[in-house]
């Protein structure tokens, strides 16, 4: 009898709460539909239901997690894991998977402060201070190889052709990406090391990330330049680009050599890199450092996201 009574109480609690939360949910849905007609207009245009917009919202998040990117950004840890004294059910554990990614704070203010407090003319000093804030080991010289400069103007590059036949119609994964970045057009060919992938079928998530966050450096002006080994060393080399004015930071991969000395620029960045650094209108000054990441743990992309 006792067991039966307890089960009845549990069910009652559940039902009461479920009813209450469902009512609140319906109320806010109604409010959204009335106040923000943009949703229905947009859903109609796409042939979707109102609810579809929300249920697919985490798709990008799941993709990011699968690609190894650190995506949480709130600085308030997204906390879906049960507290210590709660035994986690298998269902709830599934949800905590994404929350196990460590949140990173918005470090833009600290980055600007670091640079301001560093000896601007000593890139090693800047790298040292930024390494502490970003928790990434940054170097001006790695494996004995250095660039001609760690500070200079970064130019706005076009998208690289990732595999033979890649074009504006095939290059983007979402409409949003297309709208944001198609204007930069295609470079008309691959980078200095050839196509990132031999074909569309063999294009991996990693390849996509490398092109999305690609960097261009003047390999040919490096004091170490001159051997095929050094040229190969630069390929896919992970680097950090920092906009000292905004404190924005991205981690990218070297996928092309340039710009020509006559351009007056020192580096290049993909459209995604340039937008992320806050250079939507064109080039400006950046710091560039090698990432000492032998275990390949630092994800490519916008730092702090």
């Amino acid at each position: 009898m006792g067991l039966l009574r307890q089960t009845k109480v549990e069910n009652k609690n559940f039902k009461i709460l479920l009813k209450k939360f469902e009512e609140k949910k319906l109320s806010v849905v109604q409010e959204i539909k009335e106040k923000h007609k943009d949703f229905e207009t947009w859903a109609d245009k796409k042939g979707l239901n109102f609810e579809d917009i929300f249920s697919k919202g985490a798709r990008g998040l799941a993709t990011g997690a699968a690609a190894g990117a650190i995506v949480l950004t709130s600085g308030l840890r997204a906390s879906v894991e049960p507290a210590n004294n709660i035994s986690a059910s298998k269902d709830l554990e599934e949800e905590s998977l994404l929350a196990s990614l460590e949140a990173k704070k918005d470090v833009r203010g600290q980055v600007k402060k670091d640079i301001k407090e560093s000896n601007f003319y000593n890139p090693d000093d800047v790298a040292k201070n930024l390494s502490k804030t970003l928790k990434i080991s940054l170097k001006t010289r790695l494996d004995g190889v250095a660039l001609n400069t760690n500070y200079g103007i970064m130019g706005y590059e076009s998208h690289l052709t990732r595999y033979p036949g890649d074009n504006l119609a095939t290059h983007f994964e979402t409409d949003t990406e297309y709208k944001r970045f198609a204007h930069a057009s295609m470079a008309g060919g691959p980078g200095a090391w050839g196509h990132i992938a031999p074909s569309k079928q063999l294009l991996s998530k990693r390849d996509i990330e490398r092109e999305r966050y690609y960097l261009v450096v003047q390999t040919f002006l490096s004091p170490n330049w001159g051997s095929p080994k050094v040229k190969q060393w630069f390929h896919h080399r992970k680097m950090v680009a920092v906009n000292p004015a905004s404190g924005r930071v991205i981690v990218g991969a070297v996928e092309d050599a340039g710009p020509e000395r006559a351009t007056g620029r020192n580096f290049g960045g993909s459209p995604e890199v340039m937008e992320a650094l806050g250079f939507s209108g064109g080039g400006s000054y950046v710091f560039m450092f090698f990432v000492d990441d032998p275990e390949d743990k630092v994800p490519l992309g916008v730092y702090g996201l």
Partner: protein
Amino acid sequence: MRMLSLFFLKKDNILLELEKLEMQQREKKKLVDVLDELVEYRLVNMIMSKLEKRDKELFIEQLYAGSAEIFIEFLREKIENCEQVLGQYSKELEAEILEDIESLQKNK
């Protein structure tokens, strides 16, 4: 799984309070799912109220299909102190949810 709810809602205390009601796991799971939806809708409602007309469509597109990275970057650009604003609102929602659960315990 909802992006905004996942980012901003702290669930530790909510799970702890639900535990006190001795519900079955599947019931707790169902409630957490509904709460996720509720919080997501509330946050979306709040964000939409803060956006300019021209930014609303872009926000909806990103909510539907954008990468988490671009989505959050967008919020940072369009809403000043977005982490603090959304974090604070999420705390209020958490308190409201906890109050609902606790009121049930009192009537037990």
